[in-house]
């Protein structure tokens, strides 16, 4: 390498290292926080466990819904060209730029008891949204769906439309071609989308705090503890949630890598 190339390598390595340290350092600080028995305290905390249950359960449902509704949308975006496609894409990405409390307020405007959909769901069908599990799921779906759609769309771009055409020439209609050919080949992308959506759902706080403060999700509980008891009170819960989240994502990622490796070999 020339002296110039070395200079650039060192500069870029340094800048990258700073960012990585900034991202990972605080998380490590939480995991290593004193007292070291923060985990143990967290483990004995039944309220915390139930909040983690709400978080993971709702995030899983939200990610599943995201994949269920997001896959057809991703397919339309990947395969069809139509007027207003850019607008549709912009609309899908909107939740990513809207500050989260506003997302919560926006959902309230539609799903609150006396509002448009709220009056139907809550009033007629007796499905409580605000301050209930469905509200948590909706908030998570709202913020995670764009990421799911984006991930699945990338996967669909990786599957040649020729494959669907071949399937059609072999005697199936477009829907069966999608089910028998496209879907099996985008399974890794859907799995990746699910994981990203799931992660995004668990990390959501702002919109959930507005639409469904109760039943408390883990981030809401931690916020609750922090605002009442400060750093020391919030730390055990924060450390435990962080550790569990890391383990779960590690497992899911390994699982996904395995299935996609299995698929391509």
């Amino acid at each position: 390498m020339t002296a110039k190339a070395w200079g650039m390598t060192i500069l870029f390595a340094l800048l990258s290292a700073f960012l990585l340290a900034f991202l990972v350092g605080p998380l490590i600080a939480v995991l290593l926080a004193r007292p070291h028995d923060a985990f143990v305290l967290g483990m004995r905390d039944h309220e915390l466990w139930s909040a983690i249950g709400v978080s993971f359960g709702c995030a899983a449902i939200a990610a599943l819904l995201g994949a269920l509704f997001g896959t057809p949308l991703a397919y339309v975006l990947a395969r069809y060209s139509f007027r207003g496609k850019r607008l549709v894409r912009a609309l899908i990405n909107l939740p990513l730029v809207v500050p989260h409390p506003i997302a919560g307020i926006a959902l309230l405007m539609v799903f609150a008891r006396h509002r448009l959909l709220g009056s139907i769901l809550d009033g007629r069908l007796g499905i409580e949204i605000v301050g209930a599990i469905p509200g948590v799921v909706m908030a998570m779906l709202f913020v995670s769906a764009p990421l799911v759609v984006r991930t699945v769309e990338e996967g669909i771009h990786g599957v040649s439309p020729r494959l669907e055409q071949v399937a059609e020439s072999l005697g199936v209609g477009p829907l069966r071609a999608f089910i028998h050919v496209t879907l099996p080949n985008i399974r890794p992308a859907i799995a990746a989308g699910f994981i990203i959506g799931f992660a995004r759902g668990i990390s959501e706080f702002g919109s959930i705090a507005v639409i469904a403060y109760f039943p408390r999700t883990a981030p809401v509980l931690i916020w609750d503890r922090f605002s009442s008891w400060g750093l020391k009170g919030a730390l055990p819960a924060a450390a435990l949630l962080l550790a569990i989240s890391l383990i779960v994502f590690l497992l899911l990622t390994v699982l996904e890598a395995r299935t996609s490796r299995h698929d391509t070999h």
Partner: protein
Amino acid sequence: MIHIEDMRLEVPGFTLGPINLEIDEGQYFVLCGPSGSGKTSLVEWTAGFRPAQSGRLLVGGTDVTAMRPAERKLALVFQDSALFPHLSVRDNIGFSLRMAKHSPDQIRRRVDELTELLRIGHRLDALPNRISGGEARRAALARALALPKPVLLLDEPLSSVDPALHRDLRRELAQLHRHLGLTVIHITHSIAEARSLATEIGVLVSGALEQTGPTADVFERPDNAVVARALTVPNFVEGRIGPDGQSLELEQGSIPIASGRGEGKRARLFDLKLAETAGALTRDAELLGTEIDERGRPSAWVRLRESGIELEIELDETLPARDARSVHIDFSESRAEFY
């Protein structure tokens, strides 16, 4: 067997057609054209994946223009094989049978039959990314033919394979055509494929079907300069035999000919040579280059100074000097075949 009537497809900046084409049962029809000539659009329309502004397609007498791809009785093979990556070779080949709810026994028998015919029986359990390019192409053919269809539509089936495999697959396609009594439509930019496989060819250039006919006829007697160029037919000229019978009058100037045969406004010139010195029966030309064809025969490529037409001169061992710019073309033995 295949009848295309007034097919016309327009996209911004490109018009394909109007195409009128008749392919008889049992023919091996090669549609030949350079890239960008509209071949793939024509395949996609024929297969039912692309609408056109106008046109009718009849397969075996049935109008299939409005039918879905599957109902058109066309077996289809794309250039990249397009095997389903998640299915084994066996399941790829049996796909159409499985979708048509044939019994597992029937499927196994038909798959065995096809894989024996195409010699890929040893790769049945492999996934497509584990087999070679030649095997993938054979598997794609077997898959297309699993449900018997009278017409096989091949879109650049031999593109980007090495020369030895190219020859093998060419021979297998010819065998398959004979063996199964199929009508084949084979789309390619390769003149070698057209020459070696086709019973009839069509030449598509810039969206226009310039000429169709029996392969030898088209290669021997291209309709115009566009076809001659597309098929790399050398020494095609447009002109008339002069009043003295000893010259060919071109658009600009004339060239001497020793003998002429036939009648018409187009001709192919044969037996042209390089001359060492200028004479009454030579013409001056600019030497554009020399080359050696696939069979190892050297030739010079020249442009006549007077008329501007380009000719290809077969050479014996005497290559023109490396730094030569000007050469004399000897027409003393030249032969023109008019048509």
